[in-house]
């Protein structure tokens, strides 16, 4: 197919997602200067980061437009692996209290 009129506004249809991603980033920078506790700030920033990653994954990487089987094969397993990594936190908090061998 030769150059078509469609390619004149290829970017326009992605602009809403682009601006949402920029807005989320701006909110993250704003929140970082507010008086949250460290743990609270990390939780809020992580939720926003996961939200923006999901938008990027579904719309910029077009996963929303692929067959659902691709999504189901890739994403749940990845989330499961990342969730399993959460087992480290109790040990890092124990180290904070300098009780590396405490039960």
């Amino acid at each position: 197919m030769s150059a078509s009129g469609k390619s004149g506004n290829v970017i326009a249809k992605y602009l809403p997602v682009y601006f949402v991603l920029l807005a989320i980033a701006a909110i993250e920078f704003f929140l970082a200067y507010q008086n949250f506790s460290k743990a609270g700030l990390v939780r809020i920033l992580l939720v926003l980061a996961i939200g923006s990653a999901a938008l990027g994954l579904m719309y910029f990487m077009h996963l929303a437009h692929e067959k659902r089987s691709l999504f189901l094969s890739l994403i749940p397993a990845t989330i499961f692996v990342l969730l399993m990594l959460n087992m480290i936190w109790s040990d890092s908090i124990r180290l904070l209290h300098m009780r590396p061998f405490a039960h």
Partner: protein
Amino acid sequence: MSESEMAMLGHGGMLMEGSPYSIPSRKLTMWLFIISDAVTFGAILFAYGYLRVATPDWQTPFNSASIINVATMTFVLITSSLTMLGAVDASKDGDKPKALRFLGCTMVLGLIFAGLHIREWFGLFNQGIKLSSGLFGQAFFSITGLHLLHVLIGVVALAVVARKYSSGSLTPGHVETTGLYWHFVDLVWMFVVPLVYLTNIAR
């Protein structure tokens, strides 16, 4: 012809199953790479979190100038994802000149990002923070260094794809597959910024 003969000859069409996901194998391969790389970055960020939580006197070196620099880097990288989408769509529409222009913009934005990144590093060097200067330096430069390496590899990949797409030896499908990688690099940055920079602002 027997099945084994057909396999020896490079898989006869009759034996080939259709893709279970209705996507080309190169795209599926890129998705599998992205998933494995996501877990790699995930593990590194978890390791960073472990050190961060377990270290009471963690350094918080990022001043306003650093944060403005990081905000600019974020803007540049998200914008480069937009131009990459333009390249993919223009190539699918058969508009090769426009696709190449968008690919060029994406490469330039990637190089700007890398330049700002290196400027950020030199700012930390001037504060005495290096890879060898303790847990913070090791964690920070490992994570951001791995991400910067991905960006630079992405710029080189885009240059190669643009050149070969221009000469006709690569297809819009190759542009799309490279785009997946570029968007993934953008996605990783969305986690690096809050976890590595925004929770370590100098007060």
